[in-house]
């Protein structure tokens, strides 16, 4: 295990200064997620336009550097993408965090994939995987209009 794999500069940067933090007025989908283990929580807001494209996305919440960075990078990455693409990215990311060595989607550019791969260090820290995946599960829930609050225990 190496802490440098977990706390890469990009994670520390996004963790300290999360992008897209806050809430905007005309969102039409949102969902809440929390981690009962630690009390961390996230609320994802997004606006899907008539072409099912993510016009805007933001999140509120608090948590560790990993969860903040993950939400920050995620929101950056899915803005402007179509719902179908977003779902593919989510599934690819979750697969990578759980088992795969790399990302397989053809939607993200190489530099975006590199950015996302910076979160792969959590694989070595099973207790911290939930920190990285909470906002992604919450985004799925928002897209699916689920009223259920996402819990990392599930």
């Amino acid at each position: 295990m190496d802490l440098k794999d977990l706390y890469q500069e990009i994670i520390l940067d996004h963790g300290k200064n999360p992008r897209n933090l806050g809430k905007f007025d005309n969102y039409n989908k949102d969902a809440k997620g929390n981690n009962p283990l630690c009390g961390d929580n996230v609320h994802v807001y997004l606006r899907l336009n008539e072409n099912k494209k993510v016009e805007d996305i933001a999140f509120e919440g608090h948590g560790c550097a990993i969860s903040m960075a993950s939400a920050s990078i995620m929101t950056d990455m899915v803005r402007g993408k179509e719902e179908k693409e977003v779902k593919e990215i989510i599934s690819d990311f979750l697969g990578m965090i759980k088992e795969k060595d790399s990302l397989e989607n053809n939607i993200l550019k190489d530099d975006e994939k590199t950015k996302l791969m910076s979160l792969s260090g959590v694989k070595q820290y099973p207790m911290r995987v939930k920190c990285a995946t909470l906002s992604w599960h919450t985004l799925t829930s928002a897209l699916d209009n689920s009223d259920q609050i996402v819990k990392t225990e599930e």
Partner: protein
Amino acid sequence: MNIDDIKKEFPIFDDKIQNNDLVYLDSANSSQKPRIVVDRIYDFYTKEFSNIGRSVHYLAVAATNLYEQTRVSVQKYINAKDKDEIVFTKGATEAINLVANTFGQKYLSEGDEVLLTELEHHSNYVPWHFLRNAKNIKIEFAEINDDGEVTLEAIEKKITNKTKIISVSHLSNVTGAILPIKEIVQLAHSKNIPVLIDGCQGAPHLKLDMQDIDCDFYAISGHKMYGPTGIGVLYAKKKWLEDLPPYQGGGGMINEVKKEGITYGELPNKFEAGTMATAQVIAFNESIKFMEKIGIQNIEKHEKELLDYGLEKLRKNNSVNIIGNPKEKGGVISFTIEGVHPHDIATILDEDGVAIRAGHHCCQILHDKLNLPATARASFGVYNTKDDIDKLDEAINKCKKIFNL
């Protein structure tokens, strides 16, 4: 007492954990186990095992005697008047649930109030919350002050003529505050209100004398007292155990079972339904002996020294914010570092073998009050040394370095 010798009695410290010497600072969560406790479980299962209570063969009688010996040891250890005032449970959580459930059934009705405090562990809130739903009772919380203490005055302020029971912690698992439980009991009794003490953090660290404290109920967790998991104790005054209905039904707790009706067993069997955690209860006797051999006064003194040393060291460490400043405080230091989330602190410390806990420590009400989602917590046991605290301090510095603080 020689801590190095005491530490040698704990096998967990024999080997490296992830290539590090273990610095175990999570005893408020659960303590490590001395060899005699672990061996006792092995010996019981390999040489002496039988179920207790019913059969008349040699092993059954011997096991029953061993089981009952622990009851007497606990009785003496906490200075209860009668051995029948000791009920074994699966933990302190079950002990509190037992009281909330049976006392609630018999004595609580709509509009009645249960008085807790803001620093209670979830296990001393959720069981009462069940009654809020089932019986429409009210739950009141005595407030903590700025030092993270609950004073006698804070309790008094929330007592009304509807207060039917008071249930409070002996020692906070977050701020370390030791509550004035004897005074709380006196005050409550002057108003005819019974008192339950959640002794999870009290029993492993403080001298206990049930007859002196005079509380009605006291809940104990075995695994925080160098004992096995799966074992706890409910101390209750005999009059309550006789008066309250049984908690769980099953074998062992009955007197006579007929199609027309059932009569319940004598104390303490009335509250011990089904096959209990026999091996753990028997091994728990060794935990009590272990603590008696060192002496609770010596444990208290040692942990106080560690606490003073730790507080001084961490206060000097710039940007560490210590949660609460109670005058009477047990061996718990909860803290935050400006700019680093407690989970990140815990992961970074773990890399150097420093095991702490991060999160809300099952005290969300308290963390809401403090306006903190989570804190990091270092808590002490008898095996900790000043060297452990130095390593904690070094690891905190490493943490600050990683986060460029």
